[in-house]
């Protein structure tokens, strides 16, 4: 278990309310760079094409115009509650019309020496210093102001550099045609928040960002878990819910000794894991047997 969690700063920083707005900087720095080189002409030309600034537009289009000061989304996975039923996986597959080999949410499992099985759902960790975003040559991976990492399916050239870079193996590729969009229960509007799968592009967990601000619907995996292991939270308002109970996020994380996965890689993930395996210690007791 510990090997999976790596050597994160478990003692000092279980609750890490930190954000590096690296993504916003990238776009700005690109323009500064071009300007600094006296290539403002190119920047202007590209800007005139309406393409250089596309990332800002994607941010503005996200989450009904609220700014990053109002919400910073995160998720918490309470491993004490997870029994490996994989209902989250199934719900995600259905909602996004994914083929079986493409699992934006996957539940790892392994055995201890006594043969007891442990589970850990893993999905895109919504890194705030996302390695996937840095390596994308065409800026198709975007970070919204509210800290959600999304892929612009219409910009992606399918270089798969992000798949190489993601330390959480959270990205999948649409290798074969036709992409099974028609299988989705709700028709995708083909936005970054709710992409329709296009051949030759990458996909990953989108935090069901089309449901932001999650006031009526929660992410499909959160809604699907009968044990309430999945939480969606907001760091700004300090609240998290699993569809069954509401918790004060900071207290919940602190009392659960929350850790982040592979923190040593500097990815600054926005997904907190509460370690455990069915222990009835604090946390939501509903459904835990």
């Amino acid at each position, binding site marked *: 278990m510990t090997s999976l969690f790596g050597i994160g700063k478990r003692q000092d920083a279980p609750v890490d309310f*930190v954000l590096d707005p690296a993504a916003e900087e990238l776009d700005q720095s690109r323009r500064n760079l071009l300007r600094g080189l006296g290539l403002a002409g190119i920047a202007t030309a590209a800007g005139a094409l309406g393409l250089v600034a596309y990332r800002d537009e994607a941010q503005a289009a996200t989450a009904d115009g609220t700014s990053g000061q109002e919400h910073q989304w995160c998720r918490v996975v309470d491993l004490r509650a997870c029994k490996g039923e994989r209902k989250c996986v199934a719900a995600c597959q259905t909602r996004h019309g994914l083929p079986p080999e493409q699992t934006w949410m996957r539940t790892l499992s392994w055995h201890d020496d006594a043969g007891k099985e442990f589970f850990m759902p893993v999905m895109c960790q919504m890194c705030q*210093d996302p390695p996937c975003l840095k390596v994308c040559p065409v800026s198709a991976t975007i970070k919204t102001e509210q800290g959600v990492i999304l892929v612009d399916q219409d910009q992606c050239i399918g270089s798969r550099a992000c798949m190489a870079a993601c330390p959480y*193996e959270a990205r999948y590729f649409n290798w074969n045609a036709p992409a099974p969009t028609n299988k989705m229960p709700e028709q995708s509007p083909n936005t970054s928040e709710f992409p329709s799968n296009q051949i030759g592009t990458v996909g990953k967990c989108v935090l069901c960002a089309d449901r932001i601000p999650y006031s009526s619907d929660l992410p499909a995996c959160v809604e699907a878990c009968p044990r309430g292991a999945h939480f969606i939270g907001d760091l700004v308002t300090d609240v998290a819910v699993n569809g069954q109970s509401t918790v004060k996020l900071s*207290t919940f994380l602190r009392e659960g000794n929350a850790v982040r996965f592979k923190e040593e890689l500097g990815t*600054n993930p926005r997904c907190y894991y509460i370690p455990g395996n069915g222990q009835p210690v604090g946390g939501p007791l509903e459904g835990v047997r």
Partner: protein
Amino acid sequence: MSSVLESTTVRNEHPDVIEAAMRPFGKPSRKFLIAALFLAIVVAAGLGAWIYQLRMGMGVAGYTDSSFWAIYIADVVAIIGVSYGGAVVSAILLLAGASWRAPLVRLAEGTALVTVLVGAAFIFPHLGRPDRLVGMVIHANVASPVFWDMIAITTYTFATFVFFLLPLIPDTATLLASNPDELGRGRRALYRFISRGWVGSERQRHVLHSATIVVAIVIIPLAVSVHSVLAWAFALVSRPGWHESIWAPYFVIAALYSGVALVILVAAGFRRGYHLEAFITKKHFVRLGYIMVALGALYFYLTFADLLPSAYVGEIGPTEIVYGMLLGSVAGWFWLFLVAGTILPLVLVALPWTRNIGGIVIASILVVIAMWIKRVIMVIETSGYDRLTNSFGELFRFTWVSITMTVAGAAAITLLLMLLFRVVPMLSIVEMQELSPGADASDEGSASPTKSSHGRAAGVVGAVILLMVGIGAVGVTNAQPARAESLAAVATETLPVVTVTAVEAGPENTVTATVTLNGQPVPGVQVNFYESTTMFAPGDNQVPLGAMSTNETGMASIKFVAAVTGPRTITATYFPTVLGDPVVGTANLDVTEAVSLYAPTPPRLLATAGQTLALILFGVVIIVFAILIAQVVRVRRVCRPVAKGSGEPVHGN
């Protein structure tokens, strides 16, 4: 016209060079036609496979999520890699003053040009959406190593083209002057265009020579940059096996090694096909063979240096990768590479009785194939490694689509070379003429290439790019003191009443609940406090604030700092019986001062280094282009005054 003939005849001490260089220009032989037709069919089959792949998706080429990078990127690396051979033979040996290179330079430079184009073309099948490639320009991300791959390859291709073009100026002029009739109309027009204004004057030759030297100096760090940035497309991600500091120089040496091998093969092929035995002799092969095996030994050493630290420490990911190479899933291929790709060539060149043209050609074939295999292993093994389960997924499986396309790439290189040297002379005529026959013998033994000062420039570029790997560790703690909790079970007959007051004082809010039963305070019972939020539910979503026991006056109170401003309902609940319904009291609180625990992180260490680096790199690229263009302009300028008034060079000196 006559004056030109006169002046050239004076310089033409070896007219056979001209005759030999023009051998491919005649009517193509049957052998040539059959070969060309065969190669063209293979290339067409490759294009057909690509079209099929475009329609069906990359799955038909064998790609899966556990082999997301595989054969095509290995082809890009391997084929662009062999183009470095041209740079070695032409540029490094030119700067080292090794005049024996003369008969090989044109073939080497042509190989460099053709392979860099074919190699770069393999980026198209590698991409899932090649139709959107223009995105690399119009919304590029300068933080991406793949973006710099594109820049480096473009710059290098341009430099290779210039390097190929400059020495063609005097050669085409010479051919135009000596054998205008045998050239045919197409070549005549092209040669006139290339050599317009060239009369071979002292000044022109001087300028051309110095321009060529400058381009040669520039092309070496450029080639280093191309192979380094290709390596960094792998090394800049945290995957075991790829995330290796040694990878950039490792790729550069791999490129040199396989590049020299390919130059040997091309030289052997043209020597045989066009009977160039008088010019390209065993001596050339032996010298190139020495260079090749020296690089091979270096590559062997780097392979060891790459694997040892990974295996020694025992970190699970790198160890699995090394195990996979030595004993695991790709072990067969790895040992094949090691034996056939490094040891056998060394033996073939080292043993006197195999140190002949045949032996060296066999060694080169082994090197070219084994180095391709090595690239495939390096790519597919790590790509198949899952860092969450620490195990390998299914490794890449070759399919007819990817095999056909790769074979078509090799065929395209051969075919393009055959066609290229039907258009331009395959021997560097003027350079060979300028070298007296005695010069060949006198420089015996000066074969070893030397690195000169431009290595430093490359080093600076490399060092600066390395800064891109910014590693930041962040950690901000934010903890609240834990609240003591006490439990007390109270059972009463009549229902108690909970009244709540909430007062804001600065950022801190005090919430007090009073529990009474028939007007009497209820001490020592636990009250739970909640605040309502509009988050995650438009109605009354209750966030727990904590629990507190009532004192002897029946009062429990807690303080909390709200995360957001605005009105809310404060709720206090008390369970009079363990299983019954709670007693609830509420109060409204309009928070005007709130403190959110959320704060943006401070920038990572080296956060601005990437920007600075990119800025510097842009500057370097612009300077390189300026230098290269300046050389072309320089040469053109010395040609210009003479060209005025006449399309043909009329004056002698």
